[in-house]
């Protein structure tokens, strides 16, 4: 008698198959539960590395966004301060024009001189504007930049420096966030020195001499400050357009991240179905494995 013997113990095989199916089901369920196809590096090694890079890029984009948030306040403060400086200078200009008319009494001229002195200290205070505890026209220094200084011809000394700060708001993209106060207020310049102009005007009005020349000086200073203001307007425009770009970049990164990791629910659902069917079938096979042998029939 010769017949092909089969392994009389199929149970270990079936149990191993069942174990494997249970493992697969657990993986599928985990993917469904987390909504991610990469729950550990071995799920997709290249994908896991890609996720790390995308996350890093995305976090960098977020940090650029928050930098923009931080500098926008500073730039707009500078911008609106300069706008106030311009309107203050306009007031000074009209006072100067009035004084230059030659029809005013000495007392009236003295009044105007007093008003102009007020404007002078207002300008000084504007030049010392700070944002979050930091003077915005001090260059990179932290001390109060503009101080009364009788040794100076304009009566105002500059304690800041001529350095500027840049802030990175994109990969390899830096934006300059400030101008040194000495430049903004044209200190020591041949034309456009705001404090020199106002000081000259006050002196002229007080002495009632050379007023038209001083008025021209104010006009030049006004135009100069207005031109300086465009730097800040430009800065605001740059940050605004970069913000738009970063928003779209963040969106695109999160889409890429989604593509890299998102679990395909339709596939997973059908996979789970298949696995469960296979599991049921295996269980049934185990259940139906003959529990009896020929011995049962030999009674």
């Amino acid at each position, binding site marked *: 008698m010769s017949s092909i013997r089969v*392994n009389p113990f199929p149970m270990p095989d079936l149990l191993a198959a069942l174990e494997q199916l249970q493992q697969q089901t657990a993986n599928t369920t985990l993917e469904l539960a987390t909504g991610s196809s990469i729950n550990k590096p071995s799920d997709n090694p290249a994908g896991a590395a890609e996720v790390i*890079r995308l*996350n890093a890029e995305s976090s960098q984009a977020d940090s650029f966004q928050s930098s923009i948030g931080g500098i926008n306040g500073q730039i707009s403060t500078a911008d609106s301060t300069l706008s106030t400086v311009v309107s203050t200078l306009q007031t000074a200009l009209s006072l100067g024009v009035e004084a230059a008319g030659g029809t005013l009494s000495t007392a009236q001229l003295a009044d105007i001189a007093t008003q102009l002195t007020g404007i002078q200290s207002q300008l000084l205070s504007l030049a010392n504007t700070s944002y979050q505890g930091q003077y915005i026209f001090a260059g*990179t*220094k932290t001390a109060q930049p503009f101080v009364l200084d009788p040794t100076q011809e304009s009566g105002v000394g500059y304690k800041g420096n001529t350095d500027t700060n*840049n802030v990175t708001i994109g990969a390899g993209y830096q934006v300059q966030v400030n101008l040194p106060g000495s430049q903004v207020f044209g200190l020591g310049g041949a034309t456009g020195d705001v404090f020199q102009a106002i000081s000259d005007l006050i002196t002229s009005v007080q002495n009632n001499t050379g007023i038209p020349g001083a008025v021209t000086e104010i006009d030049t200073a006004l135009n100069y400050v207005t031109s300086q203001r465009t730097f800040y307007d430009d800065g605001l425009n740059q940050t605004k357009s970069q913000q738009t770009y970063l928003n779209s970049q963040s969106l695109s990164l999160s889409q890429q991240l989604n593509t890299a990791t998102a679990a395909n629910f339709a596939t997973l659902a059908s996979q789970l179905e298949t696995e469960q069917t296979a599991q049921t079938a295996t269980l049934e096979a185990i259940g139906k494995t003959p529990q009896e042998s020929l011995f049962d029939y*030999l009674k």
Partner: protein
Amino acid sequence: MSSLFGALSIATGALAAEQGAMDATTNNVANANTPGYSRLVPVLVESDPIVLGSVTYGEGVTLQKLQSVRDPILQLSIDQATQEQGQLNTYVSAMKQAQVQFTSSGSDIATEISNFFSSVNQLSADPTSIPLRQGVLAAAGNLATIFNNTSASLTQQQTTADQSVTQTVQQVNQLTGQIATLNTQISQLQGVGQDASAFEDQRDVAIGQLSSLIGVSSIKSDNSLTLTTANGAPLVVDGQSFALTTQTNAAGFQDVYAQGVDITSKLTSGQLAGLIQVRDQTLPGLVSNLDTLASGLANALNTANAKGFDLYGNPGGNIFTAPSASGQGYAATMAVAITDPELIAASSDGSQGSNGNVAVLAAVQNADVAGGQTPTDYYSSVVANVGNDVSNGSAELTSTQLALTQLQDQLGSVSGVSLDEEASNMVQYQRAYDAAAEVVTTVNDMLYTTINMGTLTG
């Protein structure tokens, strides 16, 4: 033989033979679920006939022996597959554990690197802000901590693997001792021509267990068995076993010695090889990757900080403790070197309000600081490698297991006890026994007739 007594003797021989065959079935049924048991088959042979004149008389049946059914070649393949499986199983389970450290979470190395550079970037908008500076220091602390923790848990795993090496060597020695004892018993029995199958089964089981622990080659001759490691160091020679020993090496781990020779790096399969691979190669490789990354980052950031000026107007010092030249062991010991947030060198010109050096610090994020790669790229390739190791190892393990299952199936079909077969054999032996007994009865009747022949005729 043509005498009635001769017939009686043949029938009695048949009774004994069928009884012996029944013994085989009984033993098979009793051991149906015994691991490693190889079924017994009775070897029945026809007794030598007697020739009287022109007639040849059969002399009945002899039970020569009860033989166990084995397939040594298949057994050898199973042992080899078991060795491979033992190695892969240990390796994969250790790597799965290591992989947890590299799984994306809210506080993995990649996240902490990003967090650190975000905090640096924030400082650029307001370089004098103490809270922002503290944020940078806190992020630096978190970065150092995650490197410390990851490195420590990998090292801890190394220690665990090392302890398992010692335990596995003890198990190996215990098993080789058992096998040597079984060898002696087998050769003694076989020497006097007795059946040693029960001991052979036990020895097969022991060799199977040994194979899952260490790669062995076995050389079988008539009565003896020699087991050696893959590189030829003897483990068992006949009745003698040679214990493996362990010795502490320079790294503080246990090296495996066979008769005074260091065989640690020669082990290629079995659990022991898996443990040693994980302990001496894979985990140290990962720790060294972390060291490279941590020291590269720390060096680059320290250098960047030194290019600027702190809030006191002094040139910047180290942010992180300085790594050694090789960077070895740095991930475990990395720490923030400063506690005063004002010491972060944000300024490029010495003025407090300058942020010029922040960009220098931030640029480290995109600089090649480790293995010619940026921190994030380097880390992500480490993660990809770990993932590949686990996924390739798992795939290999699955296929080895499949092969092993198939081999065991095959062996089962050769040596396993089939209850159906045993039941049918039992019926067969029982019927033959019944028949032989019937012959005895009939011969007895015939003898009675012969003895009483005179009485009947008288």
